[in-house]
C-alpha cells in the first residue's frame, strides 16, 4: 500500500515555514527574558513537527538537524538547562538554517552542508557543555543525549502496549513509523499480537488488526515516549508503564493489560538497584507532562479557530463572479427605471433590496482576501534585534494595530518598502547609545510601527525617536547634485521630499545596511504602484515619522465618473483633491502654450484630457468646463473635464489580460449600461503630459 507522498510536500513546506515563524517569535519573546514554559513548548512543538514531517517525507538532512535541535530544546523544556542569551542566539540561527534547508529541499537544490554542519557543531557544543541548573538535578543531566542513554543504568525503560484503532491507518498514522521512532530512543523489543487478523477474504487492507507489546530499554523520559504517539492520540489504545515498580508514577491510562504488570515486576527485580533513582526521575517527568499537555490542548483549542486553507485564485473567482453580479444588478436597475405601472414600482423596490444584499455580499468576499498586517510586522522584531546588535545600537520595537487588515495583494507589496523604512530608521535615525546619552535621551532608541484605519484607507506609520532628518544636509546635498538651484529656498516639505529622489543619500559613509541611495525612490515607487502614498515628517533631534497611506484593496476602487466628450473616465477618489469652477482671472498662459491655474498661491498646470487622449471634445473653452485638482507623488495638476457624473465603487478589470498595459490607465471597469469605462492612473497621466507638452503646437493655442 504505497502512497504518493509528494502531493503533501507543498502543505508540509507551507506549514513548516509558518511554524518556523512562530518559533522565531517565541524565541524573540524568550530572549527578552520571559522564560515561559509555554514559549518553550511552542518552540519544541515546531521542531518536533518539522522533524516528524521531514522524516516521513525522507528529507533526512532536515530531520537530522531538527533531531539535535530537539535534544537541546528538550533539556530546556525539562528545566535541565537554563535559557541563556547564547543559546537563544544559536536557536535563532537554527531557525535560519532550517528555513534555508527547507527552501533548498523545496526547490530541489542541494543543501548548504557547510552551514548545517556549523550549526550542528554549535548545537553539539552546547549539549556537551555542563548544564547550569539546580543542584538536585545535576547528576542526571549530563547523561541525557540519545547516544548516551543506552548505557544509563538507573532507568530500565518502559513497557508499552499499543492497540491501534481501526481508523488509525486511514488517518495517516503508521504504527511502523512509531516503532522505528521508538527504536531510535533505545533498545526495543517488540511482540506482535496477530490474533485479531481475520481471514484473507474478510481482510480490509486499510484496517489495522495488529497490536503490539513493546519493551523499550534505556534512560528515556516518559515525555519522549509519549511524543512518539502524539499524533495518534485518540486513535489507539495506549498504555505506558515503567518497567520497574515505581509508586510515584501514575499510569497514564488504566487499560494496562494484566500481563504487563507481571512482566514489569519481573524486569524490576532484575534491575532493583536502579529503582530509587528511576522513581525520582520518573516522578519529575510525570508531574511535568500533564502541565505541558494541558497547555497544548488549550492552544489547539483556541489557536486555529476553525480556519481553512483556500487557494487565492478560488477567492478571486468568487470576487469576479460577485463583480459581475453587481454589474448585472445595475443593468437591471437601469432597465427597471423606465418601466411604468404598479408592478414596476414593486420591481424597483425589490431591486433596491437586491442592491443592498449585493453590496454586503461583495464586502464579505472582499473580507476573505483581507489578512492582518501582523503577517508583515512579524519579521521586524528579529530584524531589529539583529541590526541593533550589528550596529551597536540599542533599539526597542513597539508595534500597535497589527490586527489591522489589508488585502493580500497589498500586503505582499508593502513588505519590502517597510523593511527598507525600518532599516533606514535604525541605521540613520536612531543614534548610538553614547550620542543619545549626550543628547539627554534614553540609551534605548524606540521604533514604533503603527497601523490604523482612516477614512477608507489604512495608514501605516514608521516612527523613530532618533535624530530626525538633517534638513541642512539634505539641502546641501540637493544643491550639490543640482536638484535645487543655489539661490532657491524650498519649503520644509519640499526639502523632506528630496530624499525620495532617485540615488539620493546623505549618509556620510556607506554601511552594509543602507546608505547607497537606492531606496527611498524605490520605496515610493512601490507604494505608488499599489495606489498608496508616502509622507515624511521630521522633528530635528526628536525623530521622524514616515506615514504610508494604503488602499484597503486593489480589487475595487472608489471612483469619480467624469465625462470628456462622449467618453466617461473614472478618476480614483484618493487622487482627487478638489474640483473647481474655472475663474478667468486665475488663468495664466506661458508663451501662449502652457496653461496654468493659480490656486491659493500655487500655479498648477492644466491638463486637457481631450488633447492628451486625442479624442473629440465637447467643450474646448476652459471656462465652460471643470477643473479637477488631482495629486500624485506630491505633484498637483488640474484635469480639464466636461462634467462630473456620479461617484461609485467600481470593480477593477485588467487591460493586460487580453491587451497590454497602457501608461495613464490603471485599468477598466464595466458601467451599468454594459459599456467599458477606463480608469485613469494619475501618476501616469502626469508622466504622459510631460511628454505630450513638448510636442504641442503653438498654433493650437489660439483660444
Amino acid at each position, binding site marked *: 500500500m504505497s502512497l504518493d507522498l509528494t502531493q503533501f510536500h507543498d502543505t508540509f513546506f507551507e506549514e513548516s515555514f509558518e511554524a518556523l515563524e512562530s518559533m522565531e517569535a517565541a524565541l524573540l519573546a524568550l530572549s527578552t527574558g520571559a522564560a515561559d514554559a509555554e514559549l518553550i513548548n511552542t518552540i519544541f512543538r515546531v521542531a518536533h513537527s518539522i522533524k516528524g514531517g521531514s522524516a516521513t517525507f525522507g528529507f533526512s538532512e532536515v530531520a537530522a538537524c531538527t533531531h539535535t535541535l530537539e535534544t537541546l530544546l528538550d533539556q530546556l523544556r525539562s528545566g535541565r538547562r537554563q535559557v541563556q542569551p547564547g543559546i537563544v542566539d544559536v536557536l535563532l540561527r537554527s531557525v535560519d538554517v532550517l528555513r534555508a534547508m527547507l527552501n533548498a529541499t523545496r526547490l530541489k537544490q542541494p543543501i548548504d552542508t557547510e552551514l548545517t554542519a556549523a550549526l550542528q557543531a554549535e548545537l553539539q557544543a552546547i549539549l556537551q557543555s555542563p548544564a547550569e541548573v539546580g543542584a538536585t538535578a545535576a547528576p542526571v543531566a549530563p547523561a541525557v543525549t540519545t547516544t548516551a542513554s543506552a548505557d544509563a543504568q538507573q532507568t530500565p525503560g518502559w513497557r508499552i502496549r499499543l492497540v491501534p484503532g481501526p481508523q488509525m491507518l486511514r488517518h495517516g498514522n503508521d504504527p511502523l513509523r512509531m516503532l522505528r521512532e521508538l527504536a531510535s530512543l533505545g533498545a526495543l523489543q517488540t511482540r506482535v499480537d496477530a490474533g485479531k487478523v481475520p481471514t484473507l477474504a474478510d481482510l480490509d487492507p486499510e484496517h489495522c488488526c495488529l497490536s503490539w507489546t513493546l519493551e523499550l530499554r534505556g534512560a528515556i523520559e516518559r515525555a519522549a515516549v509519549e511524543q512518539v504517539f502524539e499524533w495518534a492520540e485518540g486513535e489507539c489504545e495506549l498504555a505506558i508503564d515503567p518497567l520497574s515498580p515505581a509508586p510515584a508514577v501514575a499510569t497514564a491510562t488504566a487499560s494496562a493489560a494484566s500481563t504487563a504488570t507481571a512482566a514489569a515486576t519481573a524486569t524490576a527485580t532484575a534491575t532493583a538497584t536502579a529503582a530509587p533513582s528511576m522513581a525520582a526521575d520518573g516522578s519529575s517527568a510525570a508531574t511535568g507532562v500533564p502541565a505541558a499537555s494541558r497547555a497544548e490542548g488549550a492552544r489547539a483549542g483556541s489557536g486555529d479557530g476553525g480556519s481553512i486553507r483556500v487557494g487565492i485564485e478560488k477567492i478571486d473567482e468568487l470576487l*469576479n463572479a460577485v*463583480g*459581475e453580479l453587481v*454589474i448585472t444588478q445595475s443593468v437591471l436597475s437601469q432597465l427597471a427605471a423606465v418601466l411604468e405601472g404598479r408592478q414596476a414600482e414593486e420591481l424597483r423596490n425589490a431591486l433596491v433590496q437586491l442592491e443592498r444584499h449585493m453590496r454586503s455580499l461583495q464586502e464579505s468576499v472582499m473580507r476573505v482576501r483581507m489578512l492582518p498586517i501582523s503577517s508583515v510586522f512579524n519579521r521586524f522584531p528579529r530584524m531589529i534585534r539583529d541590526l541593533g546588535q550589528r550596529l551597536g545600537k540599542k533599539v526597542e520595537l513597539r508595534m500597535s494595530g497589527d490586527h489591522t487588515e489589508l488585502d493580500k495583494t497589498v500586503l505582499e507589496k508593502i513588505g519590502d518598502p517597510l523593511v527598507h523604512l525600518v532599516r533606514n530608521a535604525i541605521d540613520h535615525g536612531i543614534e548610538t547609545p553614547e550620542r543619545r546619552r549626550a543628547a539627554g535621551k534614553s540609551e534605548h532608541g524606540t521604533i514604533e510601527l503603527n497601523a490604523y484605519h482612516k477614512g477608507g484607507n489604512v495608514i501605516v506609520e514608521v516612527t523613530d525617536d532618533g535624530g530626525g532628518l538633517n534638513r541642512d544636509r539634505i539641502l546641501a546635498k540637493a544643491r550639490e547634485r543640482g536638484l535645487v538651484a543655489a539661490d532657491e529656498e524650498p519649503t520644509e516639505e519640499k526639502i523632506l521630499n528630496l530624499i525620495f529622489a532617485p540615488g539620493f543619500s546623505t549618509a556620510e559613509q556607506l554601511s552594509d545596511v543602507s546608505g547607497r541611495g537606492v531606496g527611498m525612490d524605490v520605496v515610493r515607487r512601490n507604494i505608488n504602484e499599489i495606489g498608496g502614498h508616502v509622507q515624511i515628517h521630521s522633528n530635528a533631534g526628536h525623530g521622524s515619522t514616515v506615514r504610508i497611506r494604503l488602499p484597503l484593496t486593489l480589487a475595487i476602487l472608489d471612483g469619480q465618473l467624469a465625462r470628456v466628450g462622449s*467618453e466617461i473616465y473614472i478618476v480614483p477618489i484618493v487622487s482627487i483633491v478638489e474640483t473647481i469652477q474655472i475663474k478667468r482671472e486665475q488663468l495664466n498662459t506661458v508663451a501662449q502654450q502652457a496653461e496654468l491655474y493659480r490656486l491659493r498661491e500655487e500655479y498648477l498646470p492644466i491638463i486637457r484630457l481631450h488633447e*492628451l*487622449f*486625442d*479624442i473629440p471634445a465637447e467643450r474646448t473653452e476652459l471656462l465652460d468646463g471643470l477643473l479637477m485638482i488631482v495629486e500624485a507623488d506630491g505633484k498637483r495638476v488640474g484635469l480639464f473635464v466636461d462634467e462630473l457624473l456620479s461617484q461609485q465603487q467600481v470593480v477593477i*478589470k*485588467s*487591460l*493586460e*489580460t*487580453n*491587451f*497590454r498595459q*497602457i501608461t*495613464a*490607465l490603471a485599468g*477598466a471597469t*464595466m458601467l451599468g449600461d*454594459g*459599456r*467599458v*469605462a*477606463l480608469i485613469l492612473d494619475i501618476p501616469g497621466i502626469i508622466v504622459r503630459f510631460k511628454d505630450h507638452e513638448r510636442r504641442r503646437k503653438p498654433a493650437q493655442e489660439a483660444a
Partner: protein
Amino acid sequence: MIPQTGATGAPIDRAGSQQVLTFKLAGEEYGVGILKVQEIRGWSAVTAIPHAPAWILGVIDLRGVVVPVIDLRRRFELEPAQFGPATVVIVIRVAGAGGERTIGLVVDAVSEVYDIDDSTFRALPEIGSTAASEVVHGLAHADGKTIILLDAERLAAGAIH
C-alpha cells in the same frame, strides 16, 4: 502543412483537412481555424483606448473580461466601412507569450464553414511587404473559391506589442 497548434489545439476530425470559418472583407474571403473561434457577436459600442493604433477600435466587455477589438479593414489598410447591424465581431482565443488571449475581429460579414483539404494549401508567394502579408498564413481552395488563411496568433500578438 496547416499548423494545428493553437489555443484549442484539439485534433481535427478528418486526417488531411481542417475546418475553417470564413468571412468577407472588401470582397475577399478570409478564413481562420474554427477551433480558435470562441463566438460570433453582433456589433456593440467600443470604448476607445487613447494612443492605440487606429486599427484597434477599443475594448468591449465580454462577460466581465475586457477584450480589445481589431478592425481588420483598417489593419489591412483598406477603406474603412461603416459599422451597422450587419457588422459582426468574431471573437478568437489564441495562445500567446503571456498565456491565452481573447481578441475580437470586426469583419464585413461571416460567410461559411469549410472543410479545407490540406492538399489545396499553398504558402503565400512573395508579394512584398504589405500590411496583410505578416498575418496571412497562406492560401487554400474550397468550393471553387480561394480563401486567404489568417495566422490568428500573429494577428493577436500584433495587437499586443
